[in-house]
C-alpha cells in the first residue's frame, strides 16, 4: 500500500463539556481520516456536536470543554500533547478556520489590511510591506472587487459576502494544509451563498488544501465535498463517500433526514415529506444503546439498546461505514415510497386582491436640531397579485426584498403609500389595525419566523392561546376557552398539559406549533406565514410544514407563505411571487416559475438553491455583488446591477415592462419574449426513474407529536 499519509486523523475522539449538571458528553467516539486535497463534509442537526469537532481540532474548547478521550493526529503528530506554543504555530498557518458569522469574526476596530497582514507577519516573519502586498493579492484571488479599497476599510463598511471572502482570504494567507469551514454560508443570502460555495470549491483545487466542511445543509455538502460524515447526538452514524452515503444510505437516521427534505420530485399531494418522529435526546438524557433508538422504526430490543455500538463497514474493506447493528437485516429496497396520494385542493373564490400596493418610508438622517437630509426607502413598489380561498401563495425573495414590509402593511401596522389591499369589500391599505373591526382582524392572522421570539416568555402557552380566543370573541366562558385551547393543542399535536408550560420549556418546533395554534385560534381566512420553518432543523421542518398544510387543507385557509427557500416553496406552494428590492420580478403558478421562461433573477435563485441529490444537475449562474440598498435603488430595473443579461442604456434607465406568458404568468423584464422562452431549464435530474428515496413505508406520513 503506497497510500499517502492522512493530513488529519481523529481516532475515537470524545469531547465533553462541564456544566452545572456535571459532565455532558458532546462528541462520543468520533473517527475521521482526511487525505490531502480531500473535502470532507460533516452534516447533522443543531446540537449534534459537529461544530465541537471543529473547535476540538483547533484545540479551542473554552474553559468548560475538554477532550476526554482519543487522539487528534495532524500530519501524524498528536495535537493533544502539544504545548501552547506548538499549537499557536499550527493555528492559522497549517490549520485555518472560517466561521459562521463573518461580521462577528472580524475585529470591528481594525482595518482589514491589518487583520490580514498579521497572519504572515507572525507565522513567517516577513516584512510588513510584503505581507500587505500578499494580502491584497489574495483578496484579488477570492474575487473581491476593488481590493485596495477593501484593504483600507473596517469590517462594518463591507457587505456580509465580502466579509466572508475576507475571512476566507485570511485563512488561506499562509497556505494551510487544512481548512475548517463551520457553516460558512448560513448567515448569507442564497445568491451570495452560491458565490461563496463556488469559491470554496475552487480552493481545494487551486491551493491543494484539505477541507472539512460543516453544515446542516445536505445540499451544500453534495456541492462541495467528496466524503461525508452524518452525525447524530454527538456520534457519527454514517460515513463514506458522497455517492454511497447519498444514494445507498444504510442508517435509519440518514434515511429519515433525506425523507424530510424537499427535493425536486417531492410534492405535497403526491409525495409528501416524512418527518422523523420524536425529538433529539438531550445530551445528558441519551437513551441506552443506540441514541437514535427511540425514534427508529427498526428498533429491536436486545440488539439496539446495548453498548458498545461500533461503526461497521457496509462491505468488507469499504470506507462506507454505519453505526447500526441491524443495517444488514433492514430491507432497504422494500422501504419504497408509500403513496398516500391526496386530492389536490381546488382553490375557491378570490379572498385577497393586492393592487399596485406601494410603501415608501422617509428616513431623516440623524440630527435632533439640525435639519438632516431626507431619504426615501422604496420598500414596496406596485405589488399586485390575487389570492384565492385554500390557495398557498409563496412570496419569495432574499433579505431586504420588502416581504416583511408587505406583511406589516397587510396586518395594518403600517399605512400604505399607495394602492389597494382588497379583503372582501374592505380596502385595508390605509386602515390601521386599531381601526379594523374584530372580524377583520381575526380573519387575518400571522405565523412568525423565529421560534424563540414568537411566544412571550413571561406567560404560559395556554394563556397566550386563550387570549386570542377571548380577544376575538370566539368564546367568553372560562371553561369553554379552556376547552378550545385543548382542542387547538390537539390540532397541532401537542400534549394538553403544555397549556400550563412556559415557552422556555418547549423546543423550537414545539414553539412553532404553538404559534400555529395561536394563529388559527380565531379561525382566520388568511394566514401570513413569515418563514415559519427556516429557523428549525430539517427533520422538524418537515413535521411543522406538514402540520401547517393539514390545518390549511381542513380549514380551507388561504396561506401567504413568505420564504427564501425555493425548495420548500416548490414543495408546498400553488402560486409563487418572486420579489427583488420591493418589486415583483415574476409571478405565476409554481410549475411555471420552476421551468423556463424565467426572469433572470429567478434563474439565478434556482441555480443558487443547494439540492441534496447527487443526480440533480444545475446550470451554474453565479451573481456578482449583493442587493443594493433599498434607500438607493438603481434606476430602471432594480435587478440591473447584478443581472447577467443586463443591456446597457435600457435596463439601467427604463423600468422593465410586464410580459405575460401563460394565463397568469408574468415576468417583468426587458428581454424579449423569444429570448426568455429560449432559456434552458436550470435544474435537471439525471435519470428520469423515480427517486429512490422519496419516502419510506415505515415512517409515518404525518408526524406524530414529539
Amino acid at each position, binding site marked *: 500500500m503506497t497510500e499517502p499519509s492522512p493530513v488529519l486523523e481523529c481516532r475515537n475522539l470524545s469531547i465533553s463539556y462541564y*456544566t*452545572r449538571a456535571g459532565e455532558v458528553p*458532546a462528541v462520543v467516539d468520533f473517527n475521521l481520516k482526511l487525505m490531502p486535497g480531500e473535502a470532507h463534509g460533516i452534516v447533522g442537526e443543531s446540537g449534534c456536536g459537529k461544530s465541537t469537532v471543529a473547535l476540538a481540532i483547533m484545540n479551542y474548547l473554552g474553559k468548560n470543554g475538554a477532550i476526554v478521550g482519543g487522539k487528534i493526529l495532524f500530519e501524524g503528530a498528536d495535537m493533544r500533547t502539544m504545548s501552547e506554543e506548538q499549537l499557536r504555530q499550527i493555528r492559522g498557518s497549517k490549520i485555518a478556520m472560517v466561521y459562521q458569522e463573518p461580521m462577528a469574526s472580524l475585529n470591528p476596530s481594525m482595518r482589514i489590511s491589518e487583520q490580514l497582514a498579521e497572519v504572515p507577519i507572525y507565522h513567517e516573519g516577513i516584512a510588513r510591506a510584503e505581507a500587505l502586498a500578499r494580502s491584497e493579492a489574495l483578496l484579488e484571488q477570492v474575487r473581491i472587487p476593488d481590493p485596495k479599497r477593501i484593504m483600507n476599510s473596517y469590517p462594518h463598511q463591507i457587505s456580509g459576502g465580502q466579509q466572508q471572502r475576507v475571512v476566507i482570504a485570511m485563512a488561506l494567507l499562509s497556505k494551510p494544509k487544512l481548512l475548517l469551514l463551520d457553516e460558512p454560508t448560513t448567515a448569507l443570502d442564497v445568491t451570495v451563498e452560491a458565490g461563496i460555495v463556488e469559491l470554496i470549491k475552487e480552493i481545494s483545487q487551486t491551493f491543494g488544501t484539505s477541507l472539512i466542511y460543516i453544515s446542516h445543509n445536505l445540499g451544500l455538502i453534495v456541492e462541495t465535498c467528496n466524503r461525508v460524515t452524518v452525525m447524530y447526538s454527538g456520534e457519527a452514524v454514517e460515513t463514506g463517500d458522497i455517492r454511497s452515503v447519498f444514494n445507498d444510505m444504510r442508517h435509519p437516521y440518514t434515511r429519515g433526514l433525506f425523507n424530510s427534505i424537499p427535493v425536486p420530485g417531492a410534492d405535497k399531494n403526491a409525495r409528501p415529506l416524512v418527518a422523523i418522529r420524536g425529538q433529539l435526546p*438531550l445530551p445528558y438524557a441519551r437513551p441506552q444503546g443506540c441514541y437514535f433508538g427511540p425514534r427508529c422504526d427498526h428498533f429491536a430490543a436486545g440488539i439496539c439498546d446495548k453498548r458498545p455500538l461500533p461503526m461497521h463497514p457496509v462491505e468488507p474493506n469499504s470506507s462506507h461505514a454505519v453505526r447500526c447493528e441491524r443495517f444488514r437485516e433492514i430491507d432497504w429496497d422494500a422501504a419504497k415510497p408509500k403513496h398516500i396520494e391526496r386530492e389536490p385542493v381546488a382553490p375557491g373564490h378570490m379572498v385577497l386582491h393586492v393592487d399596485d400596493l406601494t410603501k415608501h418610508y422617509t428616513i431623516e438622517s440623524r440630527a435632533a436640531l439640525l435639519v438632516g437630509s431626507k431619504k426615501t426607502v422604496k420598500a414596496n413598489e406596485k405589488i399586485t397579485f390575487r389570492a384565492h380561498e385554500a390557495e398557498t401563495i409563496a412570496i419569495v425573495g432574499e433579505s431586504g426584498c420588502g416581504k416583511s414590509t408587505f406583511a406589516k402593511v397587510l*396586518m395594518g*401596522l403600517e399605512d400604505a403609500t399607495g394602492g389597494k389591499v382588497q379583503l372582501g369589500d374592505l380596502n385595508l391599505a390605509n386602515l390601521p389595525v*386599531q381601526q379594523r373591526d374584530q372580524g377583520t382582524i381575526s380573519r387575518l*392572522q400571522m405565523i*412568525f419566523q423565529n421560534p424563540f421570539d*414568537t411566544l412571550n416568555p413571561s406567560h404560559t402557552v395556554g394563556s397566550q392561546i386563550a387570549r386570542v380566543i377571548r380577544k376575538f370573541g370566539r368564546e367568553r366562558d372560562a371553561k369553554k376557552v379552556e376547552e378550545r385551547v385543548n382542542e387547538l393543542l390537539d390540532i397541532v399535536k401537542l400534549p394538553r398539559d403544555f397549556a400550563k408550560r412556559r415557552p422556555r420549556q418547549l423546543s423550537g418546533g414545539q414553539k412553532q406549533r404553538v404559534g400555529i395554534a395561536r394563529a388559527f385560534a380565531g379561525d382566520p381566512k388568511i394566514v401570513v406565514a413569515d418563514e415559519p420553518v427556516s429557523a428549525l432543523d430539517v427533520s422538524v421542518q418537515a413535521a411543522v410544514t406538514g402540520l401547517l398544510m393539514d390545518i390549511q387543507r381542513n380549514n380551507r385557509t388561504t396561506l401567504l407563505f413568505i420564504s427564501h427557500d425555493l425548495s420548500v416553496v416548490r414543495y408546498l406552494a400553488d402560486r409563487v411571487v418572486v420579489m427583488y428590492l420591493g418589486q415583483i420580478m415574476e409571478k405565476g403558478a409554481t410549475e411555471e416559475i420552476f421551468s423556463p421562461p424565467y426572469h433572470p433573477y429567478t434563474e439565478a435563485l434556482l441555480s443558487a438553491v443547494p439540492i441534496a441529490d447527487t443526480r440533480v444537475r444545475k446550470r451554474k449562474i453565479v451573481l456578482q455583488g449583493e442587493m443594493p440598498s433599498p434607500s438607493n435603488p438603481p434606476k430602471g430595473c432594480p435587478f440591473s446591477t447584478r443581472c447577467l443579461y443586463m443591456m446597457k442604456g435600457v435596463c439601467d434607465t427604463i423600468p422593465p415592462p410586464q410580459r405575460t406568458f401563460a394565463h397568469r404568468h408574468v415576468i417583468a423584464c426587458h428581454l424579449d419574449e423569444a429570448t426568455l422562452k429560449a432559456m434552458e431549464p436550470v435544474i435537471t435530474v439525471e435519470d428520469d426513474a423515480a427517486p429512490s428515496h422519496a419516502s419510506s413505508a415505515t415512517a409515518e406520513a404525518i408526524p406524530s407529536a414529539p
Partner: protein
Amino acid sequence: MASVEVLATPPAAPPVAAAAPPLTLLKRLQRPRVCIALLLLMWLPLTASVMFGGYLGDAFKTWVLLPAIPATILLYVVAVASWRESPIAIIGVSLVFFWLIAAVTVPFLPLVDPNKPIAPFTGVGIEKNGHLFLLGADFKGRDMLSRVLWGCQRVLVWGVTATLVAYVVGSMLGLMAGYLAKWWDQVISFIANVLLSFPVMVLFILILNYLGASGFNIVIAVTFASAPAIMRIVRGLTLDTKTRDYIFAAQTRGEHPLRIMIYELLPNARGPIIVDACLRLGYTTVAITTLTFLGLGLQPPDPDWGLMIKEAAKVAMLWKFSYMLLIPALSVSSLILGFNLMADGLREMSLRD
C-alpha cells in the same frame, strides 16, 4: 457552540397535572403569590410604624411590627433556599436581612431607650452607671448599640420607599418613551437628559433646599434623581423587546398599547430591573445617609446612621472615640454591600440560565 445549543433546550418538565406530588412547605412558600404576601406582611407594618408611628402613638408603633417578624424570617428562609446556587447572593441576602430583622424586632429587644443619655464618652464594652455599653456610648451618653439598631429602621423604610417610587415613575416613563416612541420619546428623553445633567448631589441639595428637609421630600428628591436613569434602562429594554415577534403578534391582534406595555413588555424586563433595583437601593441608602450627614435629610433626635456620623464628626476626632464614627459607617456599608452582593449574585444567576 454545539453544547450551548443543546443546553438551550431545557429538559421537558414532568407532567404537572399527573398526580401532583405533595409540595413541601418550602415549595409552597416559594410560590410568587406567597412571596408577595410575605413581602407585604413585612413591609406594610414597618412602613406604618416608621412613617406614621409619630401620629399614632407609641403602642401602635411597637405592636404593629409583631406580624412582620415571622414574615421577615420566613422570607429570609425562602430567599436563601431559592438562591442557594450563588454564595455571593446568599451573603448579600444575609446582610440585608440582618438589618431587616433588626428593623422589625428592635422594639422587642432588651435595649435601653436610644435617646436616653446615660454616661457620655463611655468606651466599647465598659459598664458605667449600671449599664453595660457593648458598643460604647456617644458624646451625650446614649447607648450606641441601641442607636445603631434603631437607626436602621429609618434608612430602610425611606430608602426602599424612595427607590420604589422612583421605579414606578421611571418604568412608566421608560415604557412610554420606548414603546410609544415619536414625540413621547423626544419629550421624555429630553427631560431625562436635563435631569441627568445635574450631578446627583447638586440635584438633591437643590430640591431639598427648595422643598425643605423631610423624609417625604427625600422620596421626591430620589425620584427626580433616579427616575431618569431608570427610565433610560427601561426604555432600552423596551426598544429591544418591542421588535420581538410576540409584540408584533399582540399588535396584529389589535391589543391596546397600554395592555402591550404592561402585560407583554414589562414582565420581560423584570430580570434586569430587579438587578438594577438592588444596586439602586444601595445608592439610595448612600444618598439618605449622606444627606442626613450634610444636614439636609432626616431630622434629630431619633437615631439615624447619617445623623450619628454627623454628630460624631464634630466631637470624636480622636483615636479613642473613633468607634463613634466607625460603627455607623460600617453599619451603612454592610447594608449597601448586602444590596450590591445581591445584585451581583442575581446577575450571575440570570446569566447562567
